[in-house]
């Protein structure tokens, strides 16, 4: 449980020490508590819990809860509320928290009676993790916390008359899907977050080995299918590699597995994959036909659905289609920044690629939002599930460090790396103190270019190079680490990376590495927002000096 005490939640905090099985982590800002609970949930698949007081404590959670909502992360959010008789009077630290949280939670409760607390928490936990996972809020009035009641644990299953997380697809939809899959010549699988959340990685691999259908991943789908697999295409969408997006545009069948055709994935919906029939497997019925109309919609858990589909789909060779996709790569390799000669400049892509090599691709990486996040998707190849945690839907800067704390608490044996930009890191940098207080070992790599890099890139491309409010004057991150009593290291040249990573891994506690990278570097390729998916701005061919 990640939280921060305050007046209206003090009765709950007062009782907390009696329950030694509950581990509480004191955060430095409630936003951090919500991100930590989210990171905990994403790393482990279990519900993460955050707790805060009424008013400002609760409103500080909002960004973190909205982040978890957009990325379907199961978070239980407990807030204190002013005493029930004071609700509605604009009392000190009163906010209509259930009202504020309404659009960013799956469900919310206001509890004003002591004997309703236990059943409500049980329902909330059930709702948060069943069906499509999401945050659930329980706002508890202070007098309800202070009251006492007879309590008997009820271990019967939760039954809510209007809540149907157990929907199943119509049998004829399975038949139509199998027919389409067996008839397809140029199919592509679009693997999303659902692969990870339903634990479908293994059955997806079996499905791909049998059907030989190549796999493109969404940002949140990364690590659901091994990046080193020959049929892994990589990430699709705005910063996906050109051959991935071109393959999608040329496909005759798209198999959307646990993804939601986000606008960053489809570009212009009017020109998206017009030649393709589409099969959408999704646990949330309201996502089917929302952004892209599909031919077959299969509602249900992805793992179970793939298990049903697997016996019916035919073994295929598809080498012609694979060869065509290889051709699409064309001169991409030449354009790749990895093939730039070492000119003494430190490129973020080099840093991330080297981190991948030196951690043998096994680290649990938590990224922030921006250029470094996109480079991470391109240059850190994840082969194991739940090894990349990132804010996709909401794109929340400041997410990485607190989410990494949550992930490390959930998975203490994992080597956890934060990859953050200098801007995003500073938004929640105070949580370094939490790392120290909890004695956690987290590697914090700051990709420091002195700019809000992705903002600067958009300004360069679309706003005539007017860098309005994107240059950033930063503190000395090494000294900042020092002030926290942890190691701070700095890298300015590529040949320093290996030694620095080695030293960082040797540290017993959290370590901050300030990577002073090229200031005006660009993420390629790029599909401008709302443009056709095949209309990419590609990397320029490097000029050899």
């Amino acid at each position, binding site marked *: 449980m990640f939280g921060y005490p305050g007046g209206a939640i003090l009765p709950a905090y007062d009782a907390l020490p009696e329950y030694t099985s509950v581990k509480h982590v004191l955060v430095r800002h409630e936003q951090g508590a919500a991100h930590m609970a989210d990171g905990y949930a994403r790393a482990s698949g279990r519900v993460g819990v955050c707790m805060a007081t009424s008013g400002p404590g609760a409103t500080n959670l909002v960004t973190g809860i909205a982040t978890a909502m957009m990325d379907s992360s199961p978070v239980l959010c407990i807030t204190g509320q002013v005493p029930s008789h004071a609700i509605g009077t604009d009392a000190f630290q009163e906010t209509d928290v259930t009202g504020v949280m*309404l659009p960013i939670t799956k469900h919310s409760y206001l509890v004003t009676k002591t004997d309703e607390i236990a059943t409500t928490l049980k329902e909330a936990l059930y709702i948060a993790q069943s069906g499509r996972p999401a945050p659930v809020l329980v706002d508890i009035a202070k007098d309800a916390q202070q009251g006492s009641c007879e309590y008997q644990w009820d271990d019967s299953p939760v039954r809510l008359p*209007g809540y*149907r997380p157990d*929907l*199943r697809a119509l049998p004829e939809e399975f038949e139509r899907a199998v027919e389409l899959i067996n008839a397809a010549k140029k199919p592509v699988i679009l693997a999303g977050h659902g692969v990870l959340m339903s634990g479908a990685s293994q059955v997806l691999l079996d499905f791909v080995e049998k059907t030989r259908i190549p796999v493109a991943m969404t940002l949140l789908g990364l690590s659901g299918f091994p990046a080193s697999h020959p049929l892994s295409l990589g990430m699709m969408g705005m910063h996906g590699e050109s051959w991935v997006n071109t393959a999608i545009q040329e496909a005759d069948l798209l198999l959307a597995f646990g993804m939601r055709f986000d606008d960053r994935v489809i570009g212009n919906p009017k020109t998206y994959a017009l030649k393709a029939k589409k099969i959408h497997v999704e646990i949330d019925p*309201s996502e089917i036909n929302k952004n892209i109309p599909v031919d077959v919609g299969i509602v249900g858990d992805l793992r179970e659905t793939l298990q049903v589909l697997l016996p019916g789909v035919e073994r295929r060779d598809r080498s012609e289609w694979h060869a065509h996709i290889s051709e699409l790569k064309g001169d991409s390799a030449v354009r790749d920044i990895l093939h730039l000669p070492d000119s003494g400049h430190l490129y973020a892509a080099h840093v991330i690629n080297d981190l991948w090599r030196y951690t043998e691709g096994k680290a649990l990486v938590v990224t922030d939002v921006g250029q470094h996040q996109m480079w991470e998707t391109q240059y850190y190849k994840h082969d194991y599930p739940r090894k990349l945690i990132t804010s996709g839907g909401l794109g929340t800067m400041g997410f990485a460090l607190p989410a990494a704390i949550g992930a490390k608490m959930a998975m203490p044996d994992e080597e956890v790396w934060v990859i953050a930009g200098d801007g995003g890191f500073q938004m929640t940098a105070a949580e370094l103190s939490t790392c120290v207080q909890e004695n956690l070992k987290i590697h914090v790599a700051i990709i420091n270019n002195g700019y809000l890099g992705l903002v600067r890139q958009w300004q360069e491309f679309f706003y005539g190079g007017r860098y309005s409010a994107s240059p950033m004057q930063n503190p000395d991150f090494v000294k900042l680490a020092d002030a926290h009593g942890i190691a701070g290291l700095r890298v300015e040249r590529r040949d320093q990376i290996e030694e620095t990573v080695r030293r960082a891994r040797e540290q017993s506690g959290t370590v901050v590495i300030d990577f002073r990278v090229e200031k005006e570097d660009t993420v390629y390729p790029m599909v401008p927002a709302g443009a056709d998916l095949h209309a990419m701005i590609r990397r320029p061919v490097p000029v050899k000096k």
Partner: protein
Amino acid sequence: MSIPHTFVVYVEDKPGVLNRVVSLFRRRGFNIESLSVGHTDRSGVSRMTIVMEAEESAARLVEANLYKLVNVLRVEELTDGDAVLRDLALIKVRADTERRAQVLQVVKVFRARVVDVVTDALIVEITGGEDKIDGLVDVLRPFGIIEMARTGTIAMKRGAEAPSIQPHFVHARVPEVPANRAPEDDLPSEERSPH
């Protein structure tokens, strides 16, 4: 093609449910033409009739999103014509002694009734489809409408059939209820507390 869709939404009678339903329409940018809420014959269950103008695809999205609300029990769409749709309106209209007879004549033609009379005005009550009420309003307007209140549409499917306990989902079905449990068990009843 954008046409009026009429949804009947059965919800648990709990605080904030109306807010959740309305917020969904606001959040997804759907426009409510009319909304009316009231009790049903079953305690703990309220019934909303929501009319919205929308394309078919948007109507399906609204339905799917309504089902995502934990307190929504069932959504029925009554757009295909085999339903009774009714509004009720109270219209306060000017009617001095000189013109009262004319107003009463109109009221009679529309099978409306007068529920309050003072020297210079009448309150007319009318139930019926939207068109009928609009028609009466048009005819009364020249006399001078002082005030008007309308309930918004309520709707009910024709025939003897009860609303389905197993809701129909696009692309999905509800797993069958185990034989040892009647489907009715799932709906709140007087015997069971709200939690």
